[in-house]
């Protein structure tokens, strides 16, 4: 199973689309590793610098409809090769969410009030998130701050994460 704990990259915007996550001009690559330098290259977000802000982050916290637009699985792959296996948001575009779990990664939804309180409390600080998959809990810590946040994922999504993705699961079963 992949690692789902680490430092948070705060992306305080809704509707971040897959063209922003990985521009189409890089879709001619046929290795996932080649996508590494281009993650979030075209993201429109004031103050965000992909060269400076992505390194050392393993978790993304964002708002609504992350991953909308294209079906490209290159978006989860670009996250994966940068060591980011968990995205937390209010909700996700359907194809992006499915692609994450199909790759054994997680896209976890939290209520917008919780997301908002996390942004207000932690954004701008170095924040570490620990994922406890047995207790279905995130534990966020920053200088002098700590918060426990419960989450839920479906049994099917959990089995995809546990079995390392959809291909092996489906080939065994169907």
């Amino acid at each position, binding site marked *: 199973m992949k690692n789902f704990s680490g430092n948070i990259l705060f992306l305080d915007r*809704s*509707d971040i*689309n897959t*063209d*922003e996550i990985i*521009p*189409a*001009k890089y*879709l*001619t*690559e*046929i290795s*996932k590793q080649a996508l590494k330098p281009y993650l979030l290259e*075209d993201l*429109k977000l004031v103050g965000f610098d992909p060269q400076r802000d992505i390194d050392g982050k393993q978790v993304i916290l964002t708002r*609504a*409809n992350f991953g*909308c*637009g*294209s*079906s*490209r*699985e290159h978006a*989860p792959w670009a996250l994966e090769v940068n060591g980011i296996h968990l995205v937390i948001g209010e*909700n*996700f*575009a*359907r*194809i*992006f969410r*499915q*692609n994450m779990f*199909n*790759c054994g990664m997680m896209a976890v939804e939290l209520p917008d009030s919780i997301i908002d309180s996390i942004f207000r409390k932690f954004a701008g600080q170095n924040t570490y998130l620990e994922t406890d998959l047995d207790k279905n809990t995130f534990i966020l810590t920053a200088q002098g701050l700590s918060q426990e946040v419960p989450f839920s994922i*479906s*049994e*099917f999504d959990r*089995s995809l994460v546990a079995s390392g*993705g*959809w*291909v092996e699961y*489906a*080939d065994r*079963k*169907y």
Partner: protein
Amino acid sequence: MGCFMGKTIAEKIFDAHRVDNPSEDVHVIRLDAVFCHEITTPIAINDLVDRGKDRVFDPGKIKVVIDHVTPAKDSKTAMQGKILRDWARRHNIPDFFDIGRNGICHALFPEMGFVRPGFTVIMGDSHTCTHGAFGAFAAGVGTTDLEVGILKGVCAFHYPSTIRIDITGRMPEGVFAKDVILFIIHQLGVNGATNKVLEFTGPVVDAMSMESRMTLCNMAVEAGGTSGICYPDMTTVEYLWKFTKDDYADKASALDHFKTFHSDPGARYDRVLEFDVSRLEPMVTFGFKPDQVMPVREMASTRIDQVYIGSCTNGRIEDLRVAAQVLSGKKISDSIRGIVSPATPEAFRLAMEEGLLKIFLDAGFCVTNPTCGACLGMSNGVLAEGEVCAATTNRNFNGRMGKGGMVHLVSPATAAASAIAGTIVNSELYKGSS
């Protein structure tokens, strides 16, 4: 189930295709068609080879095309084409469309009769929702879902919840399906139909051609929708007749069968919305999200550098006819680069036979071969930083047609008129609202 409960089309299709229900919310369905192109399929192919599972569930149900960058523009795109071509040959996939016979997947495959009412279709491409125009459930998926589709002929979805959109009133002259769908996306928002099927019904849809219905369904995903869907009717029967005539005694019996793929009167919907289009104007996007939409009238005189007519949204023969009608006998502005890309070889051939290509060339347009190319900034019309394009495509995302470029989505009529004016304007086909 104890009592009869009406079903939507999407529910009927799911219930007829279900092979498993691994957890309460997840339904695994059998696929009637798996479509493949050279951008998202090669990585699936390589992964299948690496896993020792280089097999296909049914070569006759897999349809393959090279469409995104064709002819290849460099070594990388040549290799993507080669991986797809070699794979199609090695598995004896009969329907593989290479240079000279290739066109944009969502225009070519319907034209070939590969989509029928009641079908389930997936492709590693978000605009797969287009094929719902035939009364099918058609959804874009990622490479892993595509890989499993190729290998096993199944895909997992949540049970479909549907938003029905009744389109009523009378379409004003010079207003087109593109204007209608831009308006609907504006009303729903880019997240308004996430995880929902968008069912388009009502007298305006009933009167639309298959091409217009495909334009409607094509952009369902821009509101987050899983599949667009229209009720199959006599227009659908006529469009598919050359492929289905041996399956039915006559068109009336084909229609009877197609009508089984209509929603029941008692079907339950997530929401039902009605839009009266009688006073709708030609629409255009601003900003970087497809729900940022306003009437063209309010954006008039916005400077543009390029006009692009094509794509899976608006590159079909009907679109070329409208654009040519606007351009006939006119020249485009000296400041504009005009590019038109017929979506399929058939659209290209008809445009040639009907004299449309001459109109485009005389007006100063460049006519390209069928390809997705410029729509996603891969080839054949990429924008430079700071440039602006009026395009008949489907996404105005930041950088979509080239880093730092700006895209305004419009109908083919508005695109053609804007090419002549050099700024975004209404076409003469639009006479104003009555």
